[in-house]
């Protein structure tokens, strides 16, 4: 639902990083986005196509790598992956303690990792 603002940020970050790099256009923008976000990939690309018109990022494709939600059990330290739907009822597969709590290791990433340019 907040794709527009996130897309503006992606464009801004990309354009900032090609300054002074003798780039004629951006071909691909690589992103890592955590599974906890509710972003719709299709909409990000739509918004991006709209916002990037007339810039060196026009026609660039967003290549999104989704980062799984990984939790670390506070009791035994084991790391385990869960889906967003399972998060509220996640149990550590190692100690199987239903009372154990955990820390979020990954799943909230929002990073522009690389640009491919010509």
């Amino acid at each position, binding site marked *: 639902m*907040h794709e527009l*603002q996130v897309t503006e*940020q992606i464009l801004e970050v990309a354009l900032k990083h090609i300054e002074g790099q003798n780039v004629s256009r951006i071909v691909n923008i690589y992103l890592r986005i955590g599974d906890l976000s509710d972003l719709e990939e299709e909409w990000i690309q739509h918004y991006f196509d709209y916002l990037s018109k007339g810039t060196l990022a026009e026609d660039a494709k967003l290549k999104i790598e989704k980062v799984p939600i990984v939790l670390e059990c506070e009791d035994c330290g084991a790391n385990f992956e869960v889906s967003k739907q399972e998060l*509220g*009822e996640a149990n550590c597969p190692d100690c199987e303690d239903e009372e154990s709590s955990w820390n979020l290791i990954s799943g909230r990433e929002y*990073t522009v990792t*690389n*640009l491919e340019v*010509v």
Partner: protein
Amino acid sequence: MDEIRLIEVKQDIHADNEAVANELRKQLAEEQTFLLNLMSSPGAGKTTTILSTVAALQDDLRVAVIEADIDSIVDAEKVAAEGISAIQLRTGGFCHLDASMVKRGLDGLDLGSLDFVIIENVGNLVCPAEFDTGAIKNAMILSVPEGDDKPLKYPLMFSVCDVLLVNKIDYLELSDFNLEVMRERVLRLNPKLQIFEISAKTGAGVQEWADWIRREAGAFISS
């Protein structure tokens, strides 16, 4: 055809917002003003909760409210009608507040003469969870009519909050909302979450919640 080159970026998309949010927290510490970000879905009772919270606190703390709405000023008018200073931010279609928008709201207030500012975020359980507003603490409301399954549907929101207000507990008898099940679900998501059961309308539980604010604001202001 030109050869494709790789430029390494590794920049968090939210880095700019985080920087503004951290700057705001520094300013709040200097001004000794405690800022709370209140989030919920539409209709959970944010405005009514703010009114009853301020009523419980106004003898102890100097309070103001920042109201965010996509395109109306109804809430700010309601708050101002109670004699509380209020600033309205129109987000112009944005589904959430970010730190820059909150900064604009704070700039319109005289922070030196305020102990406590509440932000009423845009009614939405998805987007506001993703954006740091610069607040010192985050609170959310889940109202009984919404159902006890919301932590399963919006886990991020429940994970980023310090406080959960379960509002409209006067509706409990009429619903199949299971407080114990809900409590178990949210504490799995966020073991440090403080939970208060309130009815902003009848005033039930509001004192305990107001006590928490007094403690937290007091600790922040004296730190």
